[in-house]
């Protein structure tokens, strides 16, 4: 895994959103953007390919069963502006990340933010899930409280 400038990532990511509505070559209706979940896994492949990047990870459940999960991210050019490139994730890296699940329940989703092994947060998201600085800051607080779901966190906050 490469060292990257987290402040540069956050600043350029914020600028991207205001410059143009989020680019992509498809609609994001199949991702449940109202649900944000936390997951950890080991990178199998980081496919830094147009039109969209995909991050594939092996994720172990509580029973020890390992499943390959697939997560979509933004397109390579958009990610390059955020200092994310084809070497940012390497096979074997262990990552914790937030995602918005695909609506049909398959092991897939759209990436929000990713926390690297050195603790920095980056935003590889596109229009299917929020990974911006505001979302990261909100989640840092929720993670400290042990939440793994935005719905659980918001429910706790409302009480």
């Amino acid at each position: 895994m490469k060292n990257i400038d987290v402040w540069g990532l956050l600043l350029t990511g914020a600028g991207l959103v205001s410059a143009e509505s989020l680019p992509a070559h498809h609609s994001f209706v199949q991702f449940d953007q109202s649900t944000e979940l936390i997951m950890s896994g080991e990178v199998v492949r980081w496919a830094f390919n147009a039109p969209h990047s995909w991050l594939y990870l092996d994720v172990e459940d509580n029973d020890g069963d390992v499943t390959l999960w697939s997560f979509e991210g933004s397109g390579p050019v958009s990610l390059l502006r955020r200092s994310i490139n084809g070497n940012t994730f390497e096979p074997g890296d262990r990552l914790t990340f937030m995602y918005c699940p695909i609506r049909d329940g398959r092991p897939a989703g759209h990436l929000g933010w990713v926390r690297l092994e050195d603790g920095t947060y980056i935003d590889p998201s596109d229009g299917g899930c929020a990974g911006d600085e505001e979302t990261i800051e909100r989640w840092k607080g929720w993670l400290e409280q042990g939440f793994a779901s935005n719905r659980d966190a918001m429910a706790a906050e409302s009480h």
Partner: protein
Amino acid sequence: MNSRAIIATFGCCWLTVYSVTLAQELLVVPPPMEFETSTEHYAYLLEQADGGTQHTMETIPQWSGLWETDGNNNNDIFLEEYTDERIGSTVRGSVRSGVLTLPYEEAFRERRRQAEETGQQYYDRLTHCEPPGYPRHLREPYVREFINLPHQSWQLNDLGNENRRIYIGQEHVNVYATHSWLGDTIGFWEGDKLITHTVDLLPTDYFRSQPLTSNQFESVEVWELKTLENGEERLEVQVTFYDELSLVKPINAVYRFKPSTELMEIGARIRHFECETSSNSYLSEDGRTQFHLPGDPEYKDARGYTMFPELPGQSRDPIYNTQLPE
């Protein structure tokens, strides 16, 4: 576009809109008079320029480097009472009546209804690897290059590998007897301004969640490099869109591009774009966007093997050599 829209009307037939951006005013400059057709419009401008400026390699304006989109007035044209508040990745707003013809306005209202429901229209034609085409070519983000030569200008968009050629000082030709994604574009220079005329376009759209266009869509553009008060450069294009099937009357638009400083600083280069071997999104039976995943028979492995896996060196992931489980 992070902007405040001020609506104004010039004359009886031109929808003219001012957009004020926080960074720099993005202003629509309407044509000097009304024209029935794009052909009349272009011919008038060519006559006013006395046939245009014949540049040489030494005098041709250079718009070198990488560029990216920096605003447009699409929402001002097609929406009213819109704000920066978003539904998903679409701005909130209602359809402006009287801009589009009834069937096209109905189609746009359906796109907006879908956006109100889910944040975006259900499905985008780019999903099955259609190129953006024109006029969407003007708005799609990612990376642009503008190459001006005395006899041609090339406008390159990395998305879909769109290469738009503007034939300077020439007439339209259509030896294919059909229309195409970027149409046929001719142009001339008036000093440092590039004036173009585009015809023979396939039906496309302005953008996702924006209106559709017909196969009668045509345009006249005026391109000019401008320098902002802070010294930054912007490439601006004033456009008049003509389409008797989709537009009640011609509309004036403005699009702007800025140097893609971040990409140039890291040495990014445009790579060949294709999505036939790399895209797993598709139109599902319910009319929405769906995805094939690893293990699905239809899944396309962008970093898998070619059709000749028995030969050495046929992986499309030669650096990391990863494989996904079957």
